[in-house]
Structures are given as structure tokens and as C-alpha cells.
């Protein structure tokens, strides 16, 4: 089996942590809980780090098994399939949300006419090809582009310091408002859960878990920095800016005088968006193959494309509907995948450990 290294896994975690959080999210969260949204973010990220620990424990206990095999052992084939099916639906809509956010950004900045079909036609052959090539090829590509993406994000952050910024006012929103903003936008989180679906394809040596945590911390640090700098720069008008990372560059009057530096934000966001779509589609295909064992990855890709085109272009139609769908309905699915399932997996693992120790003592 073609596996990916700990470093490549870490980069996947880094890319997924940035997914859906650096463009629209800072703005929509500000509407609900002002700059205190950062506290909601810190709370969710803390939980995500715990889930990452659970993932590493599961990986340690079952180094060569995939998620379906692990779950089958503990809860039976039917429940295992239901759990994986939940992940399948989760990543299908996750891809749609990521695509929507990227589409809004490109529509705002590059092509102001509607070009949904055109974007899909240009984007999806590349994404499909990456998924068919497999996780190792993807991992190597991510490794190659990691520093480029990192420098791009840091550059956007750095430029913001050349304009007027002052710390936003914290402790303005009530705890209920903070919790609410975290709850409403929970579907934008949990992207790294794709690791559970790739679990058998990850090769981890002893002590390499630290590498994954390092990349997770880099990702979390960047997201928090983008939130803080964005709120510091725009403050009360933060709700008007839908492309946080790009807006850190664009609306600095000084830099507009020397040219369009926003091309850097554009390239960074497009690269990030492409990689995130690849990871989410790969996660969908992996769950598809685990649910429908007899079908290959190529069928999974074809099914994904058909479902995506039918649901997105025929039923959802507009990206605004996708965004409201994510905050109104998909939050329940996200609660299941982001909170309930990791706790369930942890509980099962804990039970398994207890049984093993009981067997040993007997």
C-alpha cells in the first residue's frame, strides 16, 4: 500500500485547519460575537487538538487497519458503515462549502460575472486527477507547495502591519453569543477528520506524532493571527469584508499606489482552495470505497462528480444558499462528526484497553 509520511500527514492537517476559516468565517463570526469570536475559535481548536490526540492513539493501537475495519471489530459492520456514511455526507458537503467560499472570492476579485459552471469545469478535472493518483502523489505535491503557501499567508499578514491597526475591544459579547457563534459555524471546523479515513495510509514511526502536532499548531497560530489582525484592522466594519486574508492586503491605501499586491493573496488562496478540495474529495472517495467495497476509486470519483453537479448546480444553485444551508442544517451533521464520533471512537478505544488489561490480569 502506498503510504504518506508523518510530515505529509502534518501538512494535510495544516491545510485542513486553514480550510473555510480564512475568508468568510472571520466576517460572519464577527456579526454574532464581535472580536470575542476568537474565544469561540480557541475553544473549538482546543477540542480539535484533543481529537488529534485520539487519532494518534487509535493509529497506535491499529497501525494497519482502516476505519471500517477498526469500527467493525468494536461495533459491528452495520454501525461501522453508518459511521463511514456520515463521513461521506460530511465531506461531500464540506467540498461544496469550500468550493462556495473559493467561488465567492474569485467572483468578487477576478471575474464579477457568474461563472459557476466554468469554474467547475476548470477546477474539477485537476481535483479528480489528484484523487485518482492517490494520497501519496497528493502528499508529495502538498509538501512541495507547503512553504509557498506558508510564505503567502505570512506575507498577507505582514502587509497588514503597514497600515493603521489597533487592538479590537474584547469581552464585548456575552458568553451565550460566543457559544452561539461557535455552534452556528461548527461546520467550518473538523476538516482534519479526513485523517481518520486515511488512517491505514499513514506511516507513523514512534515519536512522529509530535510532527503532526507541530503542523497543527502552525495552522492554528495562522488562523488565530488572521482573525486578530483582521479584527484589529477593520474593527466595526469587519462584517463588511468577506475575504479576510485577501482584504488584509487590498484595502491598504499605501500599497494600492504601487500596484496590485493582491495577486499574492489570490495565488495563495487558489492554491489552498485547490489542495483542500483535493483532500475533501479524497476523503469522500475513501469513505465511498469503504462503504461500497466492490467499487474502485474511479467509480467513487465519478459518483462524487455527478452528486456534486446535481446537488450544487441543480438543487443548491447559489453559493449564498450553500452558506445558509451550512449554518442552518449542516451544523447537526457537524456535531455528529466533529464531536460525537471522536468521543465514541475514544470510548471504544478506552473500553478495548480495559478489556485487554482485564485479559492480562486474568
Amino acid at each position, binding site marked *: 500500500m502506498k503510504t504518506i509520511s508523518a510530515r505529509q500527514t502534518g501538512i494535510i492537517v495544516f491545510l485542513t485547519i486553514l480550510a473555510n476559516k480564512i475568508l468568510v468565517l472571520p466576517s460572519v463570526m464577527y456579526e454574532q460575537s464581535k472580536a470575542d469570536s476568537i474565544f469561540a475559535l480557541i475553544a473549538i481548536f482546543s477540542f480539535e487538538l484533543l481529537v488529534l490526540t485520539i487519532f494518534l492513539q487509535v493509529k497506535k493501537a491499529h497501525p494497519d487497519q482502516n476505519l471500517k475495519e477498526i469500527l467493525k471489530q468494536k461495533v459491528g459492520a452495520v454501525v461501522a458503515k453508518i459511521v463511514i456514511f456520515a463521513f461521506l455526507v460530511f465531506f461531500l458537503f464540506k467540498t461544496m462549502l469550500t468550493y462556495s467560499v473559493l467561488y465567492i472570492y474569485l467572483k468578487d476579485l477576478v471575474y464579477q460575472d457568474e461563472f459557476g459552471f466554468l469554474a467547475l469545469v476548470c477546477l474539477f478535472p485537476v481535483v479528480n486527477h489528484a484523487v485518482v493518483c492517490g494520497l501519496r502523489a497528493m502528499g508529495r505535491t502538498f509538501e512541495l507547495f507547503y512553504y509557498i503557501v506558508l510564505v503567502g499567508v505570512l506575507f498577507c499578514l505582514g502587509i497588514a502591519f503597514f497600515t493603521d491597526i489597533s487592538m479590537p475591544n474584547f469581552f464585548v459579547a456575552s458568553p451565550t453569543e460566543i457559544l452561539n457563534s461557535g455552534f452556528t459555524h461548527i461546520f467550518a471546523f473538523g476538516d482534519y477528520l479526513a485523517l481518520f479515513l486515511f488512517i491505514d495510509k499513514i506511516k507513523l514511526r514512534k515519536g512522529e506524532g509530535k510532527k503532526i502536532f507541530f503542523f497543527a499548531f502552525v495552522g492554528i497560530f495562522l488562523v488565530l493571527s488572521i482573525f486578530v489582525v483582521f479584527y484589529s484592522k477593520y474593527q466595526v*466594519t469587519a462584517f463588511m469584508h468577506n475575504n479576510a486574508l485577501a482584504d488584509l492586503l487590498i484595502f491598504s*491605501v499605501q500599497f494600492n499606489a504601487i500596484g496590485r499586491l493582491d495577486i499574492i493573496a489570490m495565488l495563495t488562496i487558489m492554491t489552498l482552495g485547490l489542495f483542500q478540495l483535493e483532500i475533501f474529495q479524497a476523503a469522500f472517495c475513501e469513505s465511498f470505497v469503504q462503504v461500497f467495497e466492490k467499487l474502485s476509486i474511479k467509480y467513487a470519483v465519478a459518483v462524487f462528480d455527478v452528486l456534486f453537479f446535481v446537488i450544487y448546480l441543480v438543487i443548491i444553485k447559489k453559493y449564498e444558499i450553500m452558506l445558509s444551508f451550512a449554518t442552518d442544517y449542516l451544523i447537526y451533521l457537524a456535531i455528529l462528526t466533529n464531536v460525537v464520533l471522536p468521543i465514541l471512537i475514544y470510548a471504544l478505544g478506552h473500553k478495548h484497553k480495559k478489556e485487554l488489561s482485564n485479559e492480562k490480569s486474568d
Partner: protein
Amino acid sequence: MKKVINAIKKYPFILILVLILVVFTPYSLFSPGQSRKRAVVIAIGLDKIENEYEISFLTFIPSPNQEFQQSNSVVSGKGSSVSEAVLDAQLTLGKDIGLSHAKTTVVNERMLEEDISSSLDYLMRVVSLPENTVFVCTNTTAKELLMATDSLEQNLGLKLDQLVSYNANEVYITDTSLEAFYKGYYSPTKSSLIGYIEHVKEDGSQSEQGGGQNQSGSQSSGCSQETSQSTSSQGGQQGGAGSSEQNSSAGSSGQSENEKQRGSLQGQSQILNKGDAVLLRDGQKVALLDVDNLNSINLLSTKRSLDSITISDVQTEDEKNVDMTFLVKNKVVSIKTDFQNNIPLFVANINLGVQLSEIDTKAQKVKQNVQNTQITEEIAKKLEQKIKSEFSQMLQIIRENKADVIGVYDSFFTHNRKEFLKFLSSLDDRENFLNHVVFMLNLKIQQDG
């Protein structure tokens, strides 16, 4: 052929690539250029005449040539709403409008009689007017100012956004972009500052009536396309022509010499940049601030501004009753907020490093070296009096209009939040909180260097 089929089988991605090329190459080759479909707008003017909106676009039309050439033209449209007016202008242009390059947004003073944000809303949300556009107000119609701007650029190579950006960097300190306007508008104090550019016509009048005399002649109602000229990059000769035109026109206009120098004349009308600003509250104009008022606002800012202070009737060793002008070269500002007996106290400790730049003596000769003049106690006292008197004038304006543009609310909210919120809740009119704040200005004036 077999080899090709085998290669496609092995690498199906080639087929997708070929398909994309087959579909999109003819489409790209036969589709017209973007400049044919979309007009690049570099400045926008918004007027309201009775109940009708008029929107004017200063558009940039690139034309292929051996040397760089561009044509600018002002196109306008009218309608009962801003969206209708935009549509009307688009019909006139025969193109969609692209506002990504719009660097200036001009509104007529009358537009500011009611909340301007409702008029800007459509432009911001639907047609994507960038928030970093410089936002200015004018006394005549915005359309006339745009037309005058076009000629300003041709004659002097000076763009309106550059003119206002200079004000923003050196006079107002805070920028006067649309973003800055919204920051103030959505802040708890609902107050903001925007630039003010005066437009004076041939006879020196500053009337608010339309139908100005421009290079393009009289304006026509409804959709009209006016002032279409070209600018060359090898414009040395044109620059010369511009300045000579400025002199001849200056002689004919009824303005003071000072205003003539500040203003950039073109043809029959001139743009006067006095560095004034409009004080807005709830998106409505509440006062016009002059440079002295703005200097007083900037006094509390840590950034340095173009600030000169003139004091009169100073006694020196050699002369009696001389006028002295000082330039502020250095400034250290420390703001402290506190509550004493439930009274909010706003204390500004300011150290000013000033340099004497000019002495106006009653005698014919200046007997002392200006650069070596020491700041005596009397001079320091006079400077302090002058600064404090201008500060209290500014304070009176912002108190009367309940428009906190000096950051008093923010300072108290940041440093004494609990007490400040309690204080605000004790007031009948929270918006009038500035009247209850005690201001203390501690000045220390020293010779710079």
C-alpha cells in the same frame, strides 16, 4: 493511431486537457476584449437633484497606439434610485461598469443632508465599489467636479485621489476613504470625517446649481456623455500649457491670491483644496471643519501633521509686536482617562517641539537669525494660549454636534470600561456624553533640536 489511443488510455488526463482546449480556445479567440464589454471607472460622482439621483462615472478608455494614450470621459445617468441611475449610465455607455479601479467617490453637499450610507449601499454591495476609494464631498455637483478633475489631470498631471490622499496623510491624519467613513459610521459615536474639495466656476461663484461651464460646454439632462480628451505620456508640453493656462485664468477669477495658488485652475473652473473636511454624524453632514479645527483634532494624534502656528504681537529683544510662525516638528502625546467623583476626565499631555519658521516684523529688516531664536516664556505662553483656544473651538463644534472624532469614547471604553458604561447609563442622552467629559490639555512647548 494505436499509440495515441494507448497514450490516452494510460494518461486519461490528456483527453480532458484536449477537451478543455477544444471547447475554450475558439471561445477565447472569438470573444470580444473586456474593454469592449466593460468600462473601467476611475472616479464616481453622486448627486441628488430634487428626488432624482444622478450618477457620473469618469471612465478610462484605453486605445491601442504606438505611444501610450488614454481617453477619459464623464458619463452620467439619472434615475429615481441609485441602481436605476447606474443602469441609465450603462445604457449610455453601451457597456457594463467595472468599479475595481475607482479611486475617488465624490458626493454633492446636498447628498449629505440625509444619511449617505443608504445611497452608497447599492454601489458597495452590488456593483462592488472598493472601500479604499477616497471619499470626498464638493460644493457644486459631483459631475462638475469630475469634469474639472479630468482637465486637472491633463493640465497638471494631478489626480483628484492624489490631492485628497495628500490631505489624508498630512492634514487629516486619518484617511478619508470609504472604509474610514464606514468605520466611523458603525462606531458607537456614529461620527466620521471625509474630505472636502471646493469647486469654483469662472465667475468665482461657488453655487450649488448645476449646468457649469466646462470644457465640454453646457451639460445636458438625462444621459449625457461629455468631455472626451486624450492625455499623452509625453506630456511635457501639455504640462507647460497647463501652468500658463492656470496663470491666465487666475487673473480672471475673483479669488484671493492665496486661493489662486492653492487651487488648480483649468479652463473656466478651478478646484480648490483648502484641506477642509466635512464632519458627519449618522452619515449626515453636521459641520465643515477648517484646517485649524483639523490641526486641533490632530493635536491628540501621535502622528505628526502639517501644522503651523502663528502668534502675533510678540515682544522680542529688537522688535516690538512682531508676528511669528512656528512649525511643529516633534510631538509626543500621552492620553490618560480617569474618573474623579464620577466625572470623566480626559487628560492629554502633549510635548511639542516647535521651530520658528518666519518672523513678520513691522520694521523693514529682520535683525535676528530666525533659526537661532529661542522660545521665551512669553512665546511659549502665547503658543499655548493659541493652541488651547483653537482646541476649545474644535471641542465646541464636536460637542454641539455630538460627533466624537477624537476617540474619547474609545479611550474611556478601553481604559475605564466599567466606570464609563456606568457613567453612560446615568445619562439621559448617552450620545451627548462629550458635554459631561472634562478635558485637560497639558502642553509643554520646547524649541525643536
